[in-house]
C-alpha cells in the first residue's frame, strides 16, 4: 500500500492553505493510500497545528525541537530523513520553502523527485503519472516517477480542491525523539520585511499591470497615462522589478504583493503561476498580449491580441475623450 506523508507548513500557529489541498492530491495519487500529516516546529505552535490537523488527517506526525523554531530547510530535511520511511511518497508545497527543502530531501531519501505538480493520474506498476508545466506555463507535460524507492513531490499550491476541515478524529504521533543530530552549516539570522513603497497597490480597486511586453523603461509612462485616465494605479510583474523600472512594492505575485482589485488589466503579462498567485478575490481580468498562446488568456475574462505599445495609447485616448 502506498504511504503518503504531507508536510504541513505553518506561520504563527496557523497551517497554510496547502494543508487542506493535500487530501485531494493524495486521492488522485492512490485512493487506497494512507495519508499522514507531518508537522515540524517547536513549542505551543507546533502542538496547536498538529492538533488542528487531526480534524483533517487520521494520523499526524509531530516533530518538536527547539532548533526547528524557524523552518530552516537543512534542519527540516534532517528531521524528516530521520523520522519518515524512505520508500514513502512525501508531498511538499512548491513554494519558497518547498524549493529549498525538497530537492535535497529526495537525495537523502534516495527517492525519485518531481517538482511543481499540478495534477496526478494514478499509479501503474510503481510508475506514478503526473502533470506539470514547462517553459513558464507555455506547455504541459506528463511525467512519470518510479516510486518503488519512494518519491519526494512538490505540488503547486492552489492546484487541488481544498477539503473542508472536518472531524477526522486523527491521532498525533510524537516522533521528536527519533530526530538525531540537528547541526547545520546554514544558520537562520532574520527576516527582513519588504519596504513599503510610495503607492500601496493592495488598496486600489483597479490596477493597470505591466509585464515584459512593455519592452522599455520609457514605455512605463504609457501605463501611467492609462492608469491616470482610469483612476487606477500601476502595478507590474516580476521582470519589470528585476529591470529596476518600477519599485518592488509595485510587484504583483507570490514574491511580491497579493492584490484583490475589482478590475485587473494585465498588459503584456504572460501569466506565470507565480504572478497569478498574487491576484486574489476573483477580479475581472482583461489581458492584452501579442502572443495569442499566452497562458494569461486561460485565466482572463476578456482577451485582446494586440501589441500593448500601440494598444495602450489608443485606449487612453478613447477613455479621455469619453
Amino acid at each position, binding site marked *: 500500500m502506498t504511504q503518503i506523508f504531507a508536510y504541513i507548513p505553518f506561520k504563527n500557529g496557523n497551517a497554510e492553505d496547502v494543508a487542506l489541498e493535500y487530501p485531494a492530491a493524495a486521492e488522485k495519487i492512490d485512493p487506497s493510500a494512507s495519508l499522514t500529516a507531518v508537522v515540524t516546529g517547536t513549542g505551543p505552535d507546533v502542538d496547536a497545528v498538529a492538533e488542528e490537523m487531526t480534524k483533517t488527517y487520521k494520523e499526524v506526525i509531530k516533530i518538536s525541537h527547539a532548533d526547528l523554531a524557524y523552518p530552516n530547510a537543512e534542519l527540516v530535511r534532517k528531521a524528516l530523513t530521520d523520522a519518515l520511511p524512505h520508500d514513502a511518497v512525501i508531498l511538499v508545497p512548491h513554494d519558497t520553502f518547498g524549493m529549498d527543502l525538497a530537492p535535497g530531501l529526495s537525495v537523502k531519501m534516495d527517492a525519485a523527485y518531481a517538482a511543481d505538480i499540478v495534477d496526478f493520474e494514478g499509479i501503474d506498476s510503481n510508475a506514478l503519472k503526473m502533470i506539470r508545466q514547462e517553459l513558464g506555463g507555455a*506547455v504541459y507535460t*506528463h511525467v512519470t516517477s518510479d516510486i518503488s524507492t519512494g518519491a519526494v513531490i512538490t505540488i503547486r499550491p492552489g492546484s487541488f480542491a481544498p477539503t473542508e476541515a472536518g472531524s477526522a478524529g486523527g491521532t498525533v504521533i510524537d516522533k521528536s525523539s527519533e530526530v538525531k543530530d540537528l547541526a547545520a552549516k*546554514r544558520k537562520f539570522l*532574520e527576516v527582513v520585511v519588504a519596504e513599503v513603497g510610495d503607492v500601496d497597490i493592495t488598496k486600489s480597486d483597479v490596477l493597470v499591470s505591466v509585464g515584459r511586453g512593455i519592452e522599455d523603461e520609457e514605455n512605463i509612462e504609457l501605463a501611467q497615462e492609462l492608469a491616470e485616465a482610469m483612476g487606477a494605479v500601476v502595478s507590474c510583474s516580476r521582470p519589470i522589478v528585476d529591470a529596476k523600472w518600477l519599485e518592488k512594492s509595485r510587484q504583483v505575485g507570490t514574491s511580491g504583493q497579493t492584490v484583490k482589485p475589482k478590475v485587473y488589466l494585465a498588459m503584456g503579462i504572460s501569466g506565470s503561476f507565480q504572478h497569478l498567485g498574487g491576484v486574489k478575490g476573483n477580479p475581472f481580468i482583461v489581458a492584452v498580449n501579442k502572443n495569442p498562446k499566452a497562458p494569461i488568456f486561460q*485565466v482572463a475574462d476578456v482577451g485582446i491580441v494586440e501589441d500593448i505599445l500601440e494598444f495602450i495609447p489608443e485606449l487612453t485616448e478613447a477613455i479621455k475623450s469619453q
Partner: protein
Amino acid sequence: MEILVCVKRVPDTAENEFELNSAGNDLDRDDLVYSVNEWDNYAVEEAIQIVDNVGGSVTVVTVGDDESEEVLRREMAMGANNGVLLSDEAFEGSDGKGIAAILKAEIEKGKYDLILTGAQADEGAGQVGGMLAAMLDYPYASLVNKIEAVDDAVIKVGREIEGGNQEMNEIQLPSVLSIQTGINEPRYVGIRGIRKVASVDIPVKGAGDLGIDAAKVGDAGAKTKRVDYFVPDLGEGAEMLEGSTDEIIEKLIEKLKAKGGL
C-alpha cells in the same frame, strides 16, 4: 574565491511561440530560438562581481551537446574565466538527479568555494542546485537575492521568500546557492565580446573522463521521465475581443464600465 556557475542552454521563452509537433507528443523544435537560461546570467554576473571584489576566478560549466558550447562562450564573454562542457551520449535523458550527479563528478575534480546555479530553468523544477548540495553534503540556499562575503569561510545570504520579504542566513563555505533574477543587473554582451572568446579552448569531458557509471545517469538512471508534451483542455478561457482596434476599444470600454473599471 573559486566559483563554479552551472548554466544551461534553453529555448528562449521571449523569442518563441511554442507549438506541438505533428505527432502531438513533443515540441516542434524546428526553428526554435535557444539562449542561455535567464537565471544563469544573474548567477554569472554575481560570480564575476564577487571575484572582482575578493579575487579568484569564475568557471562556467554545462551538461549538454555540442551546441551548448555557445552558451559557455557567451558567459565567458561576460567575464567568466573558464568554461567546461560535460557531454556524452550517456548523459542524454538524465533527470535532475542525473544532471546533479554529472556536475558533482566535475566539482570533485576541482576545488570550488562556491557553486552557483540559476533558481530554475526551462523545466521550471528548480531542482539541480539543491540535489547537488545534498550529494556533496554542502549547505544550500535557494532563490538567493543577496550575497555578502563575511570571510574566507562564511557568507551572508538573502533568500527571496513570500510577500517580497527576505530571509537572511549565514552559510559556511563551500556551499551551493541558486540565484534568483533581480539580484543584480547582468552586463550586456556585444558581438565584440563574443569574438574575443571565440577561439578560447573549452575542454569537453565525457562519462569516462569524469569516472561516471553510465547506467546511473541518462535515461537509464532516470527515476523521473517526461512522457510527452500536450495541450490540455482548459475550457473556454477568455472571451476574445476581435475586430478593428477601434471596435475592440469600444467593446472593452463598455465592459470596463460595467465592471467598475471606469
